[in-house]
Every structure is written in C-alpha cells, then in structure tokens.
C-alpha cells in the first residue's frame, strides 16, 4: 500500500464474503477455469500459457501437500474470484488505480489469487472463511491489503492495527511466544519456591 490508496468499505467486502455460495468451495469446481473466465470478464484478457501453468502449479498437489491443503487453496482462490467479481469492488476508484499500477485488472487479479492462498492457507478450515465473523474480517482485510488499498475510512496505522488484531498468523505467533514466556515464568516461580523451601529446611533447628 505504498500510495495509501483507499478502496471499498470493509463492511461491503465482508458482506460480499458472507454471500458467497457454498458451490465456490465445492472440490468439483474447476478453479482454474473460474480464474480464466474471470480474466475475460474483467478486461477481455485471455490468460497466456505461462500464467495458466503458474496457476495450475499453485492449485495442484505439490510435494508433501495434503488433499485438505489443496482444497483449502482452491477454495480461497474461488473466494478471491468471488470478491473480484463484485462490481462494487471492480469499479472502486482505488482498486482501479491499484490495478492500473499492476498492469491491468487481470494481472492484478492474478497477483491476488497467488498471494491470498499463500497468506491464509492452513489457518482456518475452509467453511469458516464464510461462516465466522472474525474470519470474514481477516479475509476481507487480507484481500484489500493484497489488492493494494486501504479499507475506506481507515488510516494506514489503523488498518495495520486492525489487521494484526484479526490476523490468525500474527496472533498464533504472539500466543506461542506468550505461552512460552508464561511457561518459563511458571517454571521459574516453581524453582524459586523449591529453593526457598530448601533454604527454610536448612535453617530449621529442632527444639
């Protein structure tokens, strides 16, 4: 968000996510075809072979990748396409400007479908991104961030604060650190208590 472009309202994006059809997360859906169709819809671009190959590589089984993980990535790509397809998003001046800076709507969209799954995959079960309120906010903020715009009405610092508040990855990192710190403090307190008990026992003189 180098230029601090302002995009659509966060609430509008969240609302769009909540209206996503369950079909989008159906494993039978050919996500590659959805992306290709969307590119045509956006600016009439037909994706070249290299783009399609990249897309296929992202959406297929890689080394050590589970079926669930692949399904998650496909679902996230489908949800991103659903958001991009929203006329209110596409026509937003901030989005338009951000897309122009990245070589047009299709190129901008391809960036999104590559970035979002990498960012959010493995954080929540697929259905949660639509059903859970905090998950919708996380996806909406991740989308706007990757799109290169700020939620309407938010400054960069506020947007960053709110992102950290809902980011599962950040919270996970934070909680892990705090849990380790708490465990260390507990172990230290226990050791101190034992040391005090030993010291008291050493000073005890039977009467």
């Amino acid at each position, binding site marked *: 968000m180098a230029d601090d472009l302002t995009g659509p309202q966060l609430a509008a994006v969240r609302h769009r996510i909540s209206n996503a059809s369950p079909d989008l997360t159906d494993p039978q859906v050919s996500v590659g075809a959805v992306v290709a169709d969307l590119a045509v819809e956006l600016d009439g671009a037909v994706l070249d072979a290299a783009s399609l190959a990249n897309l296929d590589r992202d959406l297929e089984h890689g080394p050590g990748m589970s079926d669930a993980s692949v399904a998650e990535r496909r679902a996230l790509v489908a949800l991103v396409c659903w958001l991009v397809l929203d006329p209110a998003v596409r026509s937003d001046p901030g989005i338009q400007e951000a897309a122009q800076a990245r070589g047009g709507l299709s190129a901008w969209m391809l960036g999104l479908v590559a970035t979002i799954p990498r960012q959010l995959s493995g954080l929540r079960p697929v259905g949660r991104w639509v059903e859970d309120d905090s998950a919708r906010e996380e996806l909406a903020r991740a989308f706007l961030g990757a799109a290169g715009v700020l939620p309407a009405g938010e400054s960069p610092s506020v947007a960053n604060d709110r992102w950290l508040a809902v980011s599962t990855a950040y919270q996970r990192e934070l*909680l892990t650190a705090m849990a380790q710190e708490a465990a260390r403090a507990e172990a230290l307190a226990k050791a101190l208590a034992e040391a005090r008990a030993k010291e008291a026992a050493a000073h005890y003189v039977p009467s």
Partner: protein
Amino acid sequence: MSGAHAAKVDDPAVLADLGTRWLAAWPLALAAWGPTTRLHAPVLHDRPCHEGSFAWFRVDEVEVHIDLPEVLRHGVEDHPVAVLAHELGHHLLAPGDPLGSVRIAARIKVGLGSRDNLVGLVSNLWSDMLINDRLQRQAGVDMAAITKALGEPPKDSPLGLLVMRTYEILWALPRGFLTGEAPAPEGEAMLCARHIRAYARDPVAGAAGFAVLVRSLLDAAALEQADQPGAPTAGDGDVLTVGCAGDRSGDGTLPPGAASDTSLGAPAVHPALDPRVVGDIEQRAPADEAPDGRSADSGGQDRALSPAELHAVLVAIGRPTSLESVAMAWYREHASPYLVPFPVREPPVVADELLGGLTPWELGDDLGDIDWAGTVTASPVLVPGVTTVRREMLEDESSRPAPRPVDLDLYLDSSGSMPDPQRTAAPIALAGAVLALSALRAGARVQATTWSGPGQLVGTDGFTGDAEEVLRAVVAHIGGSTAFPVDLLARTHLGWEGAAPTAPGPTHIAVISDEGVDTMFRRSTKDGSELDDTAARSLESAAGGSLVLRLWPQSLPTVQHLAGDYDVYVVSTDDDLVPFARDFSRRTWGRAHGG
C-alpha cells in the same frame, strides 16, 4: 481542579441541575441492559462521599450511588448514561450479587498469587472491562468517550496502559486514542482482548486468567501505594482512572454458596495456555488441549477453598469479618448436604373436635354447614345470609403435645492432635456440625463442648437452640493436651454433688475425637490410670451415644472394647461423612421408633 470547576462543585444550583439531568438519564441506562431491566433510581449525593470515585454500586443493597461533586470534578457530567449503565452492569453482569463478588475475588486472588492487597483493585478492573465492552459493543453506549474523558493512564502504569490498549483493540480505536503517546504492552493487550471476549458472559471463570495476565505487568510498588488508604483518587491520573469504585458493600458475612464452590480453588491458567481464549488460533491442535498439554479446566484439580483462604479473600476486598465467623459459615454450608433427620418420638395424635360458638352463615357458604337448630332459635323467619348461622368447630390443642426430639450432648476434641477447623477443612469438625445442625433442625437443643486438657473447655455451657452458639463451639480450637471432661458428662447425665442432671430430657451423647477418646473411659491416678464407668453410666441415662473418631485402623478394636454400648464411627475424609450420616440416621432413628 480548575477554579471554575471548584466553584461549580460548591454551587447547589449546579448540583441540583446536574442531579435532575442524571435522573432523567436513568431510564436510558436501564434500557441499555434490556427493556425488562428494573431498578430503583440511583442515590445522588450532593456532598463528597470520599469513596474514591464518582460512582459505585452496593451489591448488598442493590443500589447505584453517584457523587455529584466528584462527577463535576472529573468532568464526566455529560456522560450520565455511560456511568449509570456501567454501575448497573455491576448488578447485571459482574459481580452481580455478593456471592459473585466473593467468587470473582477468590479467583483473582488465586491468579495474583501473594499480592493480596491488589485483589480488590484487579477484581474491580476485571468486572469493569467486561461491563464496558458489553455496553460499547452490544448496547451502543459510548464507553470510549467517557474513558477518554477520564484521561490517559500514567506512562509508568503498565496496568493502566494494558487496560486502555485493550479497549483500543476491542473497540477498533486508533492506537493512542486512549493510551496517548506511551508505549503499551501490545502482546498482553491482544491477549487480554481475546480473554475478555472469551469470558464475556462468565466473569468468575475468566477472573483468574486475567489476574495471571496482569500479574506480570504489575508495578507492585505503585499499585500497592494506590491500594492503600489515602492513595490518590481516580481523578489524579493514577491507574484507578480506568474503573469506577465498584462494589462498596460493607457486609463481612460469607455469602451462601462460596464455601462449597469447588471451582474457586482450581489453579489459574495463563490466557495464552487457555484453549477457550486461544480457540481456533491454535495450530489445529485438539481444541481442548493447550500447547503444553494442559487444559483450561482444572483437569480434576477443583477444590473448595478452606475457611482460612476464604477469610483471606474477604479481608483482601475490605470486608470486615473474622476467621471464626467465616469458619462457622463454612461448616454450616458443608454440613447442609449431610444433615440427618434427627430422631423424633411422635405420640399418637388426638383428633377430637370441640363445639365452638355460632357464627353467621353467609351466601356462598356450604349449605350443609347451616346449623338449623341455631338458625330457627335465633329467628323463626328464615332469611338466608341474614338469620342463618353455622357452628364453629375447634381443635383441642392442649391434647396435641409437641413432638419431643432427642437433645444432643456434643463433645468436640480440640487437643493438639486435632486439626484446627478454622485453618483447614477438618472432616471431624464437619461431622460435629452435621450432628449439631441435624439436632437443631429437628427442634432439639444442643450442648456443644470443645475440650482439650484438664479444665480447657469452650462451649455453650448448657443446652441451647442457637445454631450460631453451637457452631462457634464446633469451630473452636484449643490445641492443648487430652483429657475428656468426664465431670461435665456426669453433671449433664448423672447429676453432680446432689444436683439433678442438667440434661432436660432424652439426650444423645456424641463425641468427636481421635485416639484421645480413651480418656473418656479412663481416669488418671497417681499410678497411671484406671477404668472409669462414668461414661457407661451416663449412656444408661441417655437416649444413645455415638463416638465419631479419626482413628488409625489398628486402634479401632481397643476403642471399640472401651466404648461398650456406644456406637463407634470412623471418619477420616469428607467422603466418609455421607456413610456416617446415613448410618447415624438409620441407627438412631430406628432405635427411637423401635423403642
């Protein structure tokens, strides 16, 4: 305070106008908690009350209090709905009632460790944060505005900064809106925000985790000073600005339910290790398991707090109380599930009815109730409802003697070998409470005597129906040598030096002791000891006798041999009390009915 403010504070007209405006806001404050919320209007004080804040709630009296001069002094006169709704939250959400207040404080105390002087402050902060978040997010009350109006926390107050930064995160406020320029503990605030949401409707369960979280941030010296009498008040910019004065109830009694609550003694879990807080943030681990394998629930480590621990909780939140009164309430509550129906000998009921006078028979009464002889005698002309009469029938109450329950003569061993029932949960004392309260429930009178060495007696000194007096004897502790008061037993059941026995009627003798019970059957002599038959003769005069003992198994045969016709019960844990109560009920009740 500025000169203008000082003038307003002393101006009766300004205070009267302020009172009117705040009373007008009361219905809006009630509505913030739902359309069915009802509570009488707040008490508005037009003179400073020196309660440490401009508003507080009395849980015991269920009453909101507002100190109007302090309202002006703090500059919050334009936030009546926020302040009043917040105080209502102490009634409707946290702590809710005296029991909730003690339960929250008990869990906070567990989380804070040894910092008892901060229990009141942190308890109130926890309740405040739950209430404020609920009002801001769900009721649409602008708590952010009044929090802002109260001023930023001091830069050197980690707790104040934590609270304010947590509010910023919870309410999506720009960073620094409440905290100012000072760096806030970001990680802890994030975690605190999650913790508040996780326990939004369960103030007691979340209290210990909150206390653990803030413990690491406490600047003990500054906060200890803040909690001392004469400490700076809320308007002086110290950490207390983040909350109201909270519950200012002064009653030191232990609320029913606190003593037997087994969740209060569970170990505190850091929110970062609490699955309820961490939730789906966890790395897809099983939802009920924390990173180190622990769970937020106590994993079977639940326990009720001891009398001494509960006393410490009450003292920590400034309730005037004594260890003895807490212990009495503790044993009363723990005994109640085990109370036995004490034996009652019921004579046959005499059901004769006596003829009473004539009273008017009125329209609507049963036609069969008309006394025709009386009606015709009164007037030859029959006018229903005017000349008609009916005969009253009376019961002969003098022929229905009151049931005569068996009285209880209770002896509690308080020698050095017995646990102090005021410090720890003593099953032996609990057994004594079960017996005494059972007797009193049945209408019997109780003589309770706590004994230790020769001449060391504390008790009711006679038979009484006063449960408080009896429980006071049950929880007493002497801790001396061991010498059963045989003379008192003899005076009660056999008479002494020509005087009649003091027992008023059929009496059950119960002794709570351990191996020291042998002094009941042996008398010390110059050469050692010799058997004494006073206890056996007393039993012959009594309606029964029970020895409730904490014994090593190998001592039991010897004691049973000495005890003769006394029933011997061995009680060593709370688990033994249920069979004890059951056995006592069956044997004693059966004897009463079996003759």
